[in-house]
């Protein structure tokens, strides 16, 4: 009888242990999902800002047609992207094109003095920052989640209930690798 009770107690403990791991996994997965939706919100915000930006800049930057076409093209690519990988690629192309535009703006003093453009520039800076911070938070969450899935003993529970590792969201910003241009004006 006494062994039976000990046995039952042990079983209960093991079950409780597994339940707590399961709950932790669920919580982490939801955090990852939530972090992803934060990135999505900011990416959408950037997409919404771009037509406005093109409209403001068009009148001034008559020689930069190629850059503006690229921005429009990458924007629509990014908006149609489905998977995390696709999205990351399209968004980094878009970031690169916006970076090129930023470099060119230096040659247009009239544009730099335009109130509309200044306000827009602040919005774009903020949105780009928000994207990087949302991405930073997302990647941290993904790492914690993936660690939990790979580590013992939570990997047993993860395997039983089919928790899958999540993909990191990496944006490769082309302008970061470029050597900064020096001008003596």
């Amino acid at each position, binding site marked *: 009888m006494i062994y039976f009770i000990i046995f039952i107690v042990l079983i209960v403990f093991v079950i409780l242990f597994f339940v707590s791991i399961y709950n932790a996994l669920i919580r982490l997965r939801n*955090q990852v999902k*939530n*972090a992803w939706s*934060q990135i999505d919100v*900011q990416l959408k915000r950037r997409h919404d800002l771009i037509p406005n930006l093109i409209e403001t800049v068009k009148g001034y930057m008559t020689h930069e047609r190629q850059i503006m076409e690229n921005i429009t093209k990458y924007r629509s690519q990014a908006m149609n992207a489905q998977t995390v990988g696709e999205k990351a690629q399209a968004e980094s192309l878009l*970031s690169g094109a*916006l970076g090129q535009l*930023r470099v060119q703006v230096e040659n247009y003093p009239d544009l730099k003095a335009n109130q509309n453009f200044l*306000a827009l*520039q*602040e*919005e*774009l*800076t*903020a949105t*780009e*920052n*928000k994207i*990087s*911070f*949302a991405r*930073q*938070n997302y990647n*941290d*969450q993904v*790492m914690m989640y993936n660690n939990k899935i790979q580590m013992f003993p939570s990997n047993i529970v993860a395997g039983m209930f089919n928790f899958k590792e999540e993909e990191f969201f990496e944006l490769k*910003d082309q*302008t*970061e690798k470029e050597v900064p241009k020096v001008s003596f004006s």
Partner: protein
Amino acid sequence: MWELIQSNKRKSLILFFGMGALLILIGFVFGSYYNSETGGAVGVLFAILLWMILSAVSYFGGSKILLSVSGAKEVTKEIHPQLYNVVEEMKIAAGVPYFPKIYIIDDPAPNAFATGVKPENSAIAVTSGLLSTLNRYELQGVVAHEMSHIINRDILLMTFAGMMLGAIALMSEVFFRGMYFGGGSRYRSRSSSKSSSGQAQVLIMILAIVLAILGPILAQLFYFAISRKREYLADASAARLTRYPEGLASALEKIANSTHTLRTANKITAPMYIVNPLKKEGMKLADLTSTHPPISERIKILRALQQGISYKDYQKIYEMISGKKEKIIPDSALKEAIPITPLQSAFTKEKDFNPVEAKRQTGDILMKMNDYQFINCSCGVRIKVPPDYNKSIVVCPRCGRKHSINNLSS
């Protein structure tokens, strides 16, 4: 993050309970001084009650009182888009669901503080001097520091600790006044017939006087110790949030070099600010009595965060620079092994910052907050109309064009 809050609480709770014990001891001794049989218990009860009342007041109205005492005004995104955006960026970086309210204090001294006992109704206040001296990165660093105070639940703890300090100071004050008017002497003369309890009475009296003098000082040391720990932790969290410690470092440098002093700060509110508004530089000798770690040390630590900016790196560099073995970051946070590299990408660059322009913009923002109207004349002049201007037409001072004023709400 969650674990950090937990163990963070535990660490500070030890100091907090130390302070509570002091409060109870003072209550007991002062009570015994007046009545040796039941006074002790009454004193303890009184001390705790006093602390609870003060805490309740500050819990339910604290941030409002603090903000109105400092003369802070709430800002919206329309008034200052950059400040609003920077706060939102930090909210996103931290991945928290709440959005603190944003306030501006009209004061040339650059400083900032966070308030609100619950993260859901927290607020971040910055001075206009801060806005006109810092560029975007530096502002981000400061906001990240304040945001960290909110996330780490520092404000709640500091509020309760501050009220404990207040209760102890108040009781000492009352005790001294009571002694001055000879309140305790009646009981003493009655019980001094028995020699043994008379001796005890004298002992209690000496202890009471000593505690009345040392109690507030000791409580202040506890309070400052708690405050200092949170400053380091908030710096570390800020570096981690922004991934750009240089922003906060150069902001601290600019704040330290400012010659202005904040008009609205006092002893109780001083620990709330990012940099101690009452003292120019945290001195080595005054380490114990300082609410903030020496600012030069904070800057040095932030600048030394080269390889990475996880909590582990911060702790390591803190030990290296200060030469102390003291744990400033809770253990659970040290385990976190995110190899963090500083983040560098933004639409604006450092050189875009123009101090004159920034001062002018901050002036405009303050005017907007005070319901000034802005009219852009086609000759390029920007006319600022004060809210008490009662005519319906304003004439441009340069070209003489007439502009009508739309809404005369006032």
